[in-house]
């Protein structure tokens, strides 16, 4: 408890200084700084509330003499009031300041002052537009009556301004100044999760200005991405793709977020993995080669770092499966050639791997497997300097398409006679691609009789019923 209060005290000083500098958020620098700190400040408000609610008003003033100032400065900062739940938490904090029975004039004044602030936030908002207030009062309307409509009209007006600027780009009069768009993206940051702003967020994400460099504020992308990953907003796929194409850190964060859910949490079933994968929109977005390359790179890195952990491999395979499915559904006009996604692999090999193994009827499975094995072997043994083949690339290519390894195992188990060499090579390769041909031959011989191989190795849900193959590391570091 003492630890908490020390932490709170230093945080208190920090935020008190910040709020003083921020003022009413009128300059560009303060706006930038505020947007950067909004989530942390909200967390701080929550902590303050948890502390205040245990105390009565007098103790609060003794403990935090400047609390009134802190809360007042917060009330006058429109960015904070606009963000998420900050305005709600602020009212809770103010509520704690009200004294039950004011014994002195000081306490009465505090009560009165606190009531004024509460009234400002919840009732007679002092930032309201006087002219509109007068008009609506004359009509007998209250702010609750007209604000939803007003905000809707403002958003619509901005959305059509953006669309017009986008469409009529060559007509300089209709073009929105880059500074204006930038300013808009900045102002939107606290408001991304406000439902009324949905159309505007989408319009900004899909807006392409006429400047060579990015017009939108980078924090805007961060904030949208955060909200999307935490499911605080819903965005159509096209908007998400635009987001990730324009702002690389967002894509990386989204991929890492997915990794966390799939790989570093407790065992998830195959159906859940597929569900999470599809929900993340990454496979669909990866139909855009630039996005595919990045995600692919991250999987590659994860595999290397974790020494080929089965969870990572499983995630990669589900990703590839969903990706191939999404590619199939993609509009023919927008289709990219497969080599755009797999530039280092022989096109025929890629074509063969992309087929769905399950689609091949039972009796005819040997042939494609053998072909794949041959092509893969050729690619893997291509040690010529400057070539983009080599064991790891080939292994990585093959590892993506888990179904083939499964089928090779299945076929080799099913055949009564000694399984063909090609199949054994494939199996040995998928386990330890780095082995030179000598050790691999040994593994192949051993693999034929070894029964420690089960088709479902890639999926952790079946872990209990299989033994892991030799995890002798991939030795690529």
């Amino acid at each position: 408890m003492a630890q908490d209060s020390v932490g709170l005290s230093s945080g208190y000083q920090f935020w008190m200084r910040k709020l003083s500098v921020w003022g009413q958020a009128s300059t560009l620098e303060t706006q930038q700084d505020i947007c950067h700190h909004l989530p942390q400040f909200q967390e701080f408000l929550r902590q303050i509330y948890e502390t205040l609610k245990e105390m009565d008003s007098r103790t609060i003033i003794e403990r935090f003499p400047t609390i009134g100032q802190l809360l007042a400065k917060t009330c006058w900062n429109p960015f904070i009031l606009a963000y998420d739940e900050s305005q709600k938490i602020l009212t809770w904090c103010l509520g704690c300041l009200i004294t039950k029975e004011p014994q002195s004039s000081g306490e009465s004044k505090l009560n009165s002052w606190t009531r004024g602030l509460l009234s400002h936030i919840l009732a007679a908002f002092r930032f309201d537009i006087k002219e509109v207030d007068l008009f609506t009062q004359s009509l007998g309307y209250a702010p609750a009556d007209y604000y939803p409509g007003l905000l809707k009209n403002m958003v619509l007006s901005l959305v059509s301004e953006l669309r017009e600027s986008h469409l009529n780009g060559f007509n300089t009069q209709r073009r929105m100044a880059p500074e204006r768009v930038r300013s808009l993206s900045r102002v939107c940051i606290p408001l991304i999760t406000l439902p009324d702003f949905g159309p505007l967020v989408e319009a900004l994400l899909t807006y392409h200005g006429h400047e060579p460099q990015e017009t939108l504020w980078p924090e805007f992308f961060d904030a949208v991405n955060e909200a999307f990953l935490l499911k605080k907003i819903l965005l159509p796929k096209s908007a998400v793709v635009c987001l990730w194409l324009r702002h690389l850190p967002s894509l990386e964060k989204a991929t890492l977020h997915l990794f966390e859910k799939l790989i570093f949490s407790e065992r998830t079933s195959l159906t859940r993995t597929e569900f999470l994968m599809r929900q993340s929109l990454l496979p669909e977005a990866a139909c855009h080669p630039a996005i595919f390359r990045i995600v692919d790179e991250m999987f590659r890195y994860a595999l290397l770092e974790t020494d080929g952990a089965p969870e990572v491999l499983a995630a990669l395979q589900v990703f590839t499966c969903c990706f191939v499915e999404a590619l199939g559904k993609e509009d023919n006009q927008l289709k990219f050639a497969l080599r755009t996604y797999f530039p280092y692999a022989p096109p025929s090999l890629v074509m063969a791997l992309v087929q769905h193994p399950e689609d091949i009827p039972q009796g005819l499975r040997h042939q494609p497997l053998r072909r794949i094995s041959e092509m893969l072997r050729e690619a893997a043994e291509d040690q010529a300097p400057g070539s983009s083949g080599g064991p790891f690339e080939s292994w990585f290519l093959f590892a993506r398409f888990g179904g083939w390894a499964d089928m090779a195992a299945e076929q080799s188990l099913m055949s009564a006679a000694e399984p063909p060499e090609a199949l054994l090579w494939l199996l040995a390769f998928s386990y330890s691609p780095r082995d030179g041909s000598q050790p691999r031959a040994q593994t192949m011989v051993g693999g034929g009789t070894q029964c420690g191989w089960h088709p479902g190795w890639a999926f952790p849900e079946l872990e209990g019923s299989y033994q892991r193959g030799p995890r002798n590391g991939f030795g690529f570091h």
Partner: protein
Amino acid sequence: MKTEIRASRAAMESLSQQLESFSEVLAASRTPHVRSWSPTTVRRALQWARYMRHVYRRFGRHAGIRLALERRLRDQWRREDGAAPATYSGLTSFRALGRCDLLLAQRLLGNRALGGAAFRCLLGQLCPGPGAQDAEDETLQDRLALLARRRAAVHLLRASGLGESPAAHEDPLTQTQAELLLQRLREVGQAAAEGPRRLLCGLWERLPQNSFPRVIAAALLLPSAPPGPPQKELELDSPKTPGEGRHELVQWLLGKSDTMTAFCHSLPAGLLASVVGRHPELFPAYLALLTDWGRQLNYDLQKGIWVGAEAGDGPWEELLSRFQSLCQAPLPLKDEVLRALETCKAQDGGFEAPGLSIWTDLLLALGSGV
């Protein structure tokens, strides 16, 4: 069957009475009368408001009940001796029921006369803290927070100069005011036939002369059908039959010549031309105004231009631009404008040379431009 009808009629009567009584409570919440309210009174009032909102959500789509309650409220409104909506504090429409708890809460929050204990009780109800949930509805706390958020949003946008437009009929603020005006005109018109006219006269006197005409113009130019799918929360932000409200507006403008004059003077030429194009009933009055205006200008030989006798009269350019805008309006208007000018020119003597008749000069200027 008869007992059922009797029972439902009794239920309806009871509901209507509750509505009226609640409307009185709502009206009282704005007055110093709340000084006498105890915490229990506050709690009860809020509960009642919650019940009213429940009625709204329950019967909102039931046209028969909705109409009956609406009529009852209008009667109550009418009984207030034809009070203007600005001074009437009770419920004005069925739609207001949907927000009545919010309205009550805000009035009480802002009312300084409310005692300390009662205020604390109010706060406890409005801001109960984290974890307050309602199974079937958004909590009052959440709705108050949402409103605060929206207000902050509007402020943020405007402080950065966003969400505004110089053209009155495209400016969101003016548009929203226009939508509200039409909505109120419709409601007031249903309560009393004289309602709209009285409302508009009252507004004309109270409101600043530079902004109200813009709102009127925007109202006259609003699209007929509300765009997009029907609103989800039984709300109709734009009136279902905006034609009604607009008709009243036009009639009122035509009814008072000085209002019409002030209206035409304060708005830019292009905007007026759009308004008149959309509502041709206004055209004769506008044209008459322009011709009167033209007749008052005299030719200044030294300067070589038409000037007004008094300082207040608009100069030549202004008059010309107005005629030009009219000529750019839809075809029937343009023809009538030219015909009227020809008539005036003929009346003046049919001169062809410039500087003798303003109508000749106007036609010459228009001829070259149009």
